[in-house]
């Protein structure tokens, strides 16, 4: 395994505790602190079904390069208490080099974590905290961890201010005091913690964003021009909506909380018909309820976007944990022949880029776009580079937007079968452009028709406008070269990129392809990218190998391609992908 670690693994820390222990707050501060120091970082969290008082854990990984996934194990496990560890022990892989920090007054390390050989160190957090007015254990522990990691105290202080600043001095002061006390105590613990390789600050601080995938998706929406959102709350999509609600207003738009998802999807269809780019966000159960509405958007050629933040399925499933198992419904869940767009965000920063692109494509192509994110993207935070102005547009490219019919067109037919398949649209308020949008089959003028010729013409036009469009190079992110290809989509990209990088670093040329555009699949470009690969492994986080099957359905994969698909809720880690690559080899060569 050791040769794999030549890729800089950064430092991985888990902070755990029961609900209310402040583990997540400590993690958020630490993320801000490493960001302040100039590192990139990724903070995931684990929550149980309890609203309050359940387990809680923050998982942080940081280093000098953008961090796109969790590592294979944690270097440091910080246990504020052991009360609920049984519920997420699965999520805490440790190695013999790991260190466990626990309070000196705590019970022994629970057996559920056993068998890894990590060293255990008891620290006097509780005692220290009790000496402080309103002293909190999580802050003391945070301070001692910061010291162990060699972070400058100003960075921790900045992290505390950025994270708790809004709560006012009454919270801020004791928090800072706790961190300070912990920091002071930790410096001379005599331990040998896994400091970040390269050490010290890396980049000018001002140039980075600290945001969650759900926030990034909200940003992508407004960058794409969305000014109306209707939605119904659902885990893990709600934070995207909560980020959007006050901000849409500042932009002159609005968010409407609907009575259910049947309403929300139809509300955005209405708003978009009115000319305002519109979006909703949901998760699996809500997406199910939107399928009929999305079919209406497709048939009536009304642009709309749904961001689907996936969670464990099927049915109510595991609402608080991640999975990539909604690809099937996103691709095929509409009744009838209903071609539409399906995109997937490849990372937290990419939530912004992909949602923006999805909005622009839907607007330009007058159809429904489903953008897939998931719990692990949506509810994790990262320190990332800011997005450029046109994430996917070359300078020469015309801006992707809705094609509006010229007012002078005396023979306006709303559903005219043009060469591109895109029919210039009129908007309410435009004189002479009146038409009735319809989900009933219709002729070019929009008059209902059940004649075969009209049906064929409209079906083909709705397909052609999607398949003939030139999507440029944004359909995938491709890294490295090699006869071995790791092919993936959506949030699995992070772990796949790292696995491929490790293979390359180990002298085994490997190309990683992460699909951002899934439907329509840019088949020729993908075939080209796969060309001549001797090993192809399709990686995804679901049971049914949904993407693998989809790629086969379009005859993209050669017979020797194989699949590594495994359901949630545990995040995909690079190491398991490397294991899958190894397992795949002998079978293929036999």
């Amino acid at each position, binding site marked *: 395994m050791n040769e794999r670690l030549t890729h800089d693994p950064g430092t991985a820390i888990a902070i755990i505790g029961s609900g209310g222990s402040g583990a997540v707050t400590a993690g958020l501060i630490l993320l801000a602190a490493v960001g302040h120091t100039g590192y990139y970082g990724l903070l995931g969290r684990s929550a149980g079904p309890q609203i309050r008082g359940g387990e809680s854990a923050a998982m942080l990984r940081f280093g000098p390069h953008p961090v796109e996934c969790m590592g294979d194990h944690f270097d440091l496990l910080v246990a504020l208490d052991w009360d609920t560890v049984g519920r997420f022990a699965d999520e805490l892989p440790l190695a013999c080099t790991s260190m466990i920090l626990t309070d000196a007054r705590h019970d022994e390390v629970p057996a559920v974590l056993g068998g890894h050989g990590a060293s255990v160190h008891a620290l006097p957090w509780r005692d220290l905290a009790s000496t402080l007015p309103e002293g909190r254990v999580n802050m003391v522990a945070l301070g001692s961890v910061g010291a162990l990691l060699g972070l400058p105290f100003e960075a921790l202080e900045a992290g505390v201010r950025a994270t708790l600043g809004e709560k006012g001095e009454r919270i801020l002061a004791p928090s800072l005091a706790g961190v300070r006390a912990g920091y002071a105590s930790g410096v001379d613990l005599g331990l040998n913690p896994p400091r970040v390789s390269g050490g010290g600050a890396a980049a000018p601080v001002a140039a980075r964003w*600290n945001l969650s995938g759900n926030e990034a998706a909200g940003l992508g929406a407004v960058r794409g021009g969305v000014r109306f959102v209707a939605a119904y709350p659902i885990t893990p999509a709600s934070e995207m909506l909560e980020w959007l609600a006050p901000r849409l207003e500042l932009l002159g738009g609005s968010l*409407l909380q609907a009575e259910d998802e049947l309403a929300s999807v*139809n509300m955005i269809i209405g708003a978009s018909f009115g000319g305002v780019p519109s979006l909703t966000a949901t998760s699996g159960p809500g997406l199910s309820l939107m399928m009929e509405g999305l079919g209406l958007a497709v048939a009536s050629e009304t642009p709309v976007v749904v961001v689907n933040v996936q969670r464990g399925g099927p049915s109510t499933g595991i609402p608080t944990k991640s999975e990539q198992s909604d690809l099937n419904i996103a691709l095929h869940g509409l009744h009838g022949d209903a071609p539409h767009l399906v995109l997937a965000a490849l990372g937290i920063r990419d939530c912004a880029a992909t949602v923006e692109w999805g909005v622009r494509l839907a607007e330009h192509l007058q159809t429904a776009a489903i953008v897939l994110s998931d719990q692990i993207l949506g509810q994790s935070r990262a320190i990332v580079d800011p997005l450029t102005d046109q994430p996917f547009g070359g300078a020469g490219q015309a801006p992707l937007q809705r094609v509006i019919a010229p007012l002078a067109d005396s023979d306006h037919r709303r559903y005219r079968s043009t060469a591109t398949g895109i029919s210039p649209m009129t908007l309410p308020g435009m004189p002479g452009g009146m038409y009735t949008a319809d989900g009933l089959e219709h002729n070019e003028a929009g008059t209902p028709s059940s004649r075969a010729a009209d049906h064929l013409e409209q079906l083909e036009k709705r397909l052609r406008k999607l398949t003939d469009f030139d999507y440029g190079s944004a359909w995938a992110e491709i890294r490295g070269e090699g006869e071995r290809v790791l092919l993936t989509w959506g949030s699995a990209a992070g772990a796949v990129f790292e696995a491929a990088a490790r293979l390359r670093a180990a002298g085994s040329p490997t190309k990683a392809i992460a699909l951002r555009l899934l439907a329509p699949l840019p088949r020729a470009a993908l075939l080209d990218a796969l060309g001549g690969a001797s090993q192809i492994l399709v990686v995804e986080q679901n049971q049914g190998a949904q993407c693998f099957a989809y790629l086969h359905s379009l005859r993209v994969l050669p017979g020797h391609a194989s699949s590594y698909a495994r359901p949630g809720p545990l995040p995909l880690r690079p190491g398991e992908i490397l294991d899958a690559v190894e397992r795949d080899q002998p079978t293929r060569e036999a």
Partner: protein
Amino acid sequence: MNAPCETPTRRAKDYRSAIAPVWCPGCGHFAVLSAVTKALAHLQLGQERVAMVSGIGCSSRLPAYVETYGFHGIHGRALPLASGLKAARPDLTVIVTGGDGDGFSIGGNHFLHACRRNMDLTYIVMDNAVYGMTKGQASPTTEADWRRSKLTPHGSGLRPFLPATIAFAAGASFIARGFAGDPSGLTTLLVAAIEHPGFAFLQVLSPCQTFRPEQKDWKQKVHASTVEPASDPIEAARFLQSDDGFALGVLYARRLPVWQPRNQVSATPADLEAAFLR
């Protein structure tokens, strides 16, 4: 006062599109179509500033027959579609049409919440107490003992849905009832509904010639509402308890806060991005 530049007067027939209705001869929905065009002409609304939104059903076919913008959506979802449109485009006059099945069966939830939300929409339900388009099943407003649907051979056994009573309970600010057999009364009610600021609900008794021929009786049954349009809730509640379902007129009207989007631009996406720099 002279208009600064003259706009030609729009006549009712200017609001009628060229598409021939699929309705059965004698269907009550024809009268509603005609009243819609007359009301629009009365109000001299620009054709391009009106949007007619509907679901699915015989009644829901109406938008295609009106020469304005329109959206013939899916079954039961006309109100949310129209609400989204109005939220995005408060400048438009948005009129929603549909049937008793579309509005009170599959669409019942949206009806409740649209009443609560009180957006400035007009909602016309052409109530024939039957699903016309799917060939004659019981709808929520059908009598419990109507036995002519094969789906419910002993009658639905359900207490009829009382549209005005439910709208009132849900907080609607304008409730009226018209009759397809009284076209001029209907036009007047429609004008009042469109002019009402907020959610205006207009139930139109609109007989289904084909599956409820006995609704010919409605001509005899309807009568003008004896009370003045109540604006006092207690009074309205009392009136609705004694309502036989055939009183025509404005049954309730009251000014209530109207749901409005807050469309004032004070920032750009770049401003929002700045907040992530921390």
